[in-house]
């Protein structure tokens, strides 16, 4: 297990470095002697002291935009082609089994976080789901629990932190993973550590399984997200995703 973690860490570090080199930090337009002001300017339209939830705290915008751009290329030239090959090889039916299998193992995080938020009923349902789907659902390949009206209760560590009043902190765009913020990144690291050290992959304790599961779950995850970089067709996609992500997380924490 240690070997694959080292492997993962070095990949992560490499990506972070590549992004640092790519990402320019100047976020203001470059003016010159011929520059003339716009007919409609922000300063004339919006008073400076408007404070509102629409403005998202994003002090690392230059860096974030660099990572956003990196993700666009990563998605286009590596991630999505891999997903396409996967979808080409696998019958739809088999893909659904994989999704169920991945979801079933990640019930571990749903369970711990429901527990941490003292949502005992949801934690109980999660535990029952895991028990039913692992046995009746044949190692989680099927999801009979949902058909019996025991719906998934997704919670992650970022939500747990939010539940106890931790604010989002600065907005972050993570390499490969996409939109996040300081709280949710911390949450993600926490969930990953817990999963790898105490969760199902640790029970199996086999390097090959851990690596295989990491790869498969990454492909399965991307397959299930319809989002395509610059698929919204808005020049303000970065801004709109930032707003949507933040609002969505606020709502997920409230529930």
């Amino acid at each position, binding site marked *: 297990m240690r070997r694959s973690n080292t492997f993962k860490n070095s990949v992560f570090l490499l990506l972070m470095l590549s992004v640092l080199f790519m*990402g*320019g*930090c*100047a*976020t*203001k*337009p*470059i*003016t*010159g002697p*011929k*520059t*003339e*002001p*716009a*007919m*409609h*300017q*922000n300063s004339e*339209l*919006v008073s400076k002291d*408007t404070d*509102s*939830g*629409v*403005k998202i705290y994003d002090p690392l*915008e*230059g860096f974030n*935009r*660099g990572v956003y*751009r990196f993700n*666009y290329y990563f998605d286009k030239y590596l991630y999505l082609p891999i997903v396409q090959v996967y979808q080409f090889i696998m019958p739809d039916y088999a893909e659904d089994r994989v999704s169920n299998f991945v979801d079933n193992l990640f019930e571990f995080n749903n369970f711990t976080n429901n527990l941490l938020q003292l949502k005992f009923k949801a934690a109980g349902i999660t535990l029952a789901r895991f028990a039913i789907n692992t046995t009746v659902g044949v190692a989680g390949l099927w999801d009979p629990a949902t058909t019996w009206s025991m719906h998934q209760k997704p919670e992650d560590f970022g939500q747990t932190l939010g539940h106890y009043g931790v604010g989002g902190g600065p907005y972050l765009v993570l390499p490969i993973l996409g939109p996040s913020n300081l709280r949710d990144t911390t949450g993600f690291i926490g969930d990953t550590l817990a999963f790898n050290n105490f969760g199902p992959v640790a029970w199996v304790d086999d390097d090959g399984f851990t690596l295989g599961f990491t790869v498969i779950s990454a492909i399965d995850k991307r397959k299930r997200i319809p989002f395509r*970089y*610059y698929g919204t*067709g*808005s*020049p*303000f996609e*970065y*801004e*709109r995703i930032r707003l949507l992500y933040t*609002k*969505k997380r*606020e*709502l*997920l924490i*409230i*529930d």
Partner: protein
Amino acid sequence: MRHWLTSLALILMIVLPTISQAVDKPYFYPYINPFEATVMELPPYYEADMPKKVPTKIFSLEVFPERKIPEVFWYEDGLDCSLVAQKGKAPLIFIIAGTGARFNSPKMVKMQKKLYQAGYHVISITSPTHMHFVINASSTMTPGNLYEDAKDLYRVMQLAMEEVKNAIDVSSYNLTGYSLGGIQAAFVSMLDDEEKVFNFEHVLLINPPVSLYNSMTILDQMLEENIPGGIDNIESWMDSVTGKLAEATKSMGYFEMSADYIYKASKRFPPREDFLASLIGISFRLSSTDMIFASDMMKGGGYITPRNVKMSNSTSLSLFETVGFRTSFGNYFDEQFVPFFMMKDPSMTREKLIEQSSLRHIESYLNRAQKIGLLHNEDDIILGPGEIEYLKGLFGSRAKIFPTGGHCGNMGHKDAVDFIVNFFAGQEG
């Protein structure tokens, strides 16, 4: 008494068949309120059948290879279109997307599937108001002029055909479009009658505006009149909307970003009409913000961005979005559109430009072009007073007008799709 019974039986015999005919296929649309009809997704029960997946090929066109695209649009590489192809010889339909929509927007994909199922090749074209089109395929980079937009669309359609001609066997060409794409289809059809490249067999306008300027003004107002305190209060209004959504989330016990969730939430907390209207207004304003920014940047700036600045791939655009959001279509029309076309042609006036962007302007053509049909709704919210009556008079038996459905809300409805398929097959009504 007996006489009375006989008459009753007779009446029943006459009336019953008509009742059962009516029961056979009454048009029913689940949202009576036109704003709901426009915003809410059609529940699957009313949706026409369609295949889950259709063979789709996406291809990219370089319309103006010489054109320099500013670095701020670093991700742009040509205008994407899609082809859904039949295996053998078949008629082809071009679809033009509505305001701000892409070739693969949800409404477009549904149309592709349904028309493919009915046996057509389908080529889908992004709206001339969409950023991709403005940057890659608009000759004036100032969208909204129906004559110019039609020329641009016609050029794109020809390039697209050039691109796919070896992959498909086409028996005839047809054209459709919804919303803004609907009125554009009429102008493209007129252009084709002169140029005769495609010789369209059938052309269907789906929920088109009568006057582009009127409809855009209505949409501007939906935003401005339904936000308490006006556009300057948009931030606090959005905060209050999030607050309400949070309340709904708490009471529902979960949150999910899906149409299904919004539908369930709206059943429990029925949205007010002014709220729905403001949502339509916002969605329109977001599209027009994108369009205005793209147009301004392509022309060197000066409107909502400073003139002669260099924006890189990491330039923050947040401030320009804020400005764009406060710029109505009316502002764009008066401050960008009219001056631009008056500079090109000094005899042009504001009034002429408004008049040109209307079906009334090509009324005589629409009167005689029997191949053009209309699908519309009595309660379409983008039409002004009297406009639906005008359309009824103009198209006569070539028009199918549903009583409800709002603006394009019922495009996927079984009855609407039946009409569309029959229309292209040449069996009207």
